[in-house]
């Protein structure tokens, strides 16, 4: 035990000696959370739209004013003909063109029907769907006003909505937990895999192997300091998301911290596993960063909900550890649920952690070559 403690102390000294890495280690997550909390959002505001008004009457004026005064859109150009549409969309500044047909106002009154067409830039599907939905909603609203003035009580059934857990519909609620999950797994896996391969690459692993320390002790000793550092990191990030983004932990803080510990442990053991299969730091960094970044962003439900993915991807996503932590952290932080609601996810993370550790121990070579 004393031997082991001595080893842990040595590892701490290693880390603290390199002040620069330490600053980066704590600074990066903080800066990233701050940056993304403000930046990463899917709220539509001030999207530039152009109008092609073939009618140019009072009614079309009224509708385009209504669209532009919503705060979501900004009028940028008024086009004169259909040929202009391709020209402006191609330049990429304008995201949509709204076309009013000829004799719009007259048709609406005499025939009771008039058509608006929304042309969006489909090369950016997110934007295109958002804009189409918002404009359609504004026009539906306008229709309702129109109907209200013409014949009262035509719309018999009116639904009322309550948005639960996120009444002001902010995208922070979605992205802050996701960014925490993403950054923690990448940092933890990178740190452990690199610290172990570093010893291999420099040949100092040999020194450790001939020491009376058992392989398990070597690995535990390597991981212990990073476990503590990462835990402090999580606490800092949670404080920030509370102070800066007003995202309080609604549920039990103790439970959330315990779950975070489990998640850190899982990420660290993933790092150990990576270090057992890579010979150099380059390889370890390649696997734990290039290999893991995009799958973590895309398949964990961080930005894109898993339910919307094509068939079969549910299974792929089930193999992604971050998926479970995102569910856990959203449940505890935002909904305020207790352990009973996340025990399944917790169990999966525990099983994954055990599997990673077991595999690493089996693959860990005591001999060089």
């Amino acid at each position: 035990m004393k031997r082991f403690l001595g080893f842990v102390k040595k590892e701490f000294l290693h880390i603290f000696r390199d002040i620069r890495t330490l600053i980066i280690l704590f600074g990066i997550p903080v800066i990233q959370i701050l940056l993304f909390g403000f930046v990463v959002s899917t709220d539509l505001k001030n999207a530039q739209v152009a109008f092609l008004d073939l009618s140019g009457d009072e009614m079309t004026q009224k509708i385009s004013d209504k669209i532009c005064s919503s705060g979501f859109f900004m009028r940028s150009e008024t086009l004169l003909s259909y040929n202009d549409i391709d020209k402006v969309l191609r330049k990429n500044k304008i995201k949509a063109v709204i076309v009013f047909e000829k004799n719009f106002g007259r048709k609406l009154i005499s025939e009771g029907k008039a058509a608006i067409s929304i042309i969006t830039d489909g090369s950016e599907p997110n934007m295109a769907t958002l804009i189409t939905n918002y404009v359609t909603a504004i026009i539906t609203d306008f229709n309702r006003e129109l109907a209200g003035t013409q014949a009262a009580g035509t719309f018999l059934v009116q639904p009322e909505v309550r948005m639960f857990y996120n009444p002001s519909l902010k995208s922070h609620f979605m992205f802050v937990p996701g960014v925490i999950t993403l950054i923690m797994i990448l940092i933890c896996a990178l740190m452990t895999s690199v610290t172990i391969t570093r010893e291999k690459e420099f040949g100092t692993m040999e020194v450790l192997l001939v020491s009376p320390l058992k392989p398990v002790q070597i690995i535990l000793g390597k991981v212990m300091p990073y476990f503590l550092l990462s835990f402090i990191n999580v606490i800092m990030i949670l404080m920030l998301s509370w102070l800066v983004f007003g995202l309080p932990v609604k549920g039990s803080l103790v439970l959330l911290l315990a779950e975070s510990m489990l998640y850190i442990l899982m990420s660290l053991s993933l790092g150990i596993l990576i270090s057992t299969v890579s010979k150099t730091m380059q390889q370890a960094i390649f696997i734990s960063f290039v290999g893991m970044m995009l799958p973590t962003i895309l398949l964990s439900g961080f930005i894109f909900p898993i339910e919307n993915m094509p068939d079969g991807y549910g299974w792929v996503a089930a193999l992604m550890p971050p998926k479970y932590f995102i569910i856990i952290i959203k449940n505890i932080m935002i909904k305020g649920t207790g352990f009973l609601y996340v025990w399944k996810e917790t169990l999966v993370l525990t099983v994954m952690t055990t599997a990673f550790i077991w595999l690493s121990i089996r693959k860990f070579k005591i001999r060089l070559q």
Partner: protein
Amino acid sequence: MRTIFYLIRKEFLQIFRDKFIGRAIFGVPIVQMLLLVPAVTFEIKNVKLCIIDRDMTAESRGLVNQLEGSTFFKVRFSTFSEQEANNLLYRGKCDLVLQIPSGFGKETGKGNPGKLLVSANAINAVNAQLSWAYLNGVIRDYNINIIAENTGSLSFASIPQIQVTNRYWYNELLNYKYYMLPGVLGILILAIGFILAGLNLVKEKESGTIEQINVTPVKKYHFIIAKMVPFLIIGLIDIAIGLIIGKLTFNIPFEGSIALLFLGSAIFLIAVLGLALLMSTFSGTQQQFMFTAFFFIIIFVLMSGIFTPLESMPVWAQKLDLINPAAYVMRINRMVMLKGSTFRDISRDIFSLTLIAIAFTSLAVNRYRKTA
């Protein structure tokens, strides 16, 4: 010139001597593109609905049937207790709860307005809004049906109504793969180029082999160019592989000029590699460089506009994005591939990207010290 050529050859030998890296440089992009490009869609399907039907009349059942008939909603639960419904929402078993109060059928039958209550899980704000909009659409159809029944269809037609049609240009069916492929490809070459080029230089520093170069008459810019060119070539090969995959497996349209796309990607890669080499002159160990790379790559990727629209970012972040090479390449790739934009359409982006590339690279040459 010959010096650079020999140095480049040395770098290539060094890169491919590591069998793992040599394979991963091409293997990882192929696997990730095949796996990730089809995964992402923005369309919402299977919204899980819980119904509290307190009314139990033909009218309320008609509404539920209409909801069930749409491909968008799946009625998963129906219950009489609001508490149970809220609990299901809480546990994430359903996304929307629709409450039909008693007396709904009677009122609407008489032509009086009937109320419905909807509760939505709004943690994912976009999803909640879209499902709500769809639900509204179904209810509107339902409205039109009862109005038609109550008053006869003639009088309904006299209510003026604006009809909205919409079209998605350049991507009629809003195929998400067309959008994701150029983006994922850009991110992959960004990460691979940045990490490998930077680590390569720091590794020489850490193991001391850089001294052997420093004592030779090799010029500073020779050295930086030789570190850059191999990864530039590897990156461009990765792009070619990616485009072939896109054409063969996902049938991605290619409207613009291939040469223009490669020109944009090459400038992008030079900018990325220049920054990587600049950062590696600041780092003493591979660990330090790794964290720096982590910082820049994650920021470049999440602010590139591929996952969330650039326009949704605050103005200061859009200004910051002016030095983000990834934001430019996403735009250029998409515009050239899907819209067939010509050089003139993207000249501003190309110009800015070139400035960034020159700035980073000359800084890297300037910062690199041959003397210890």
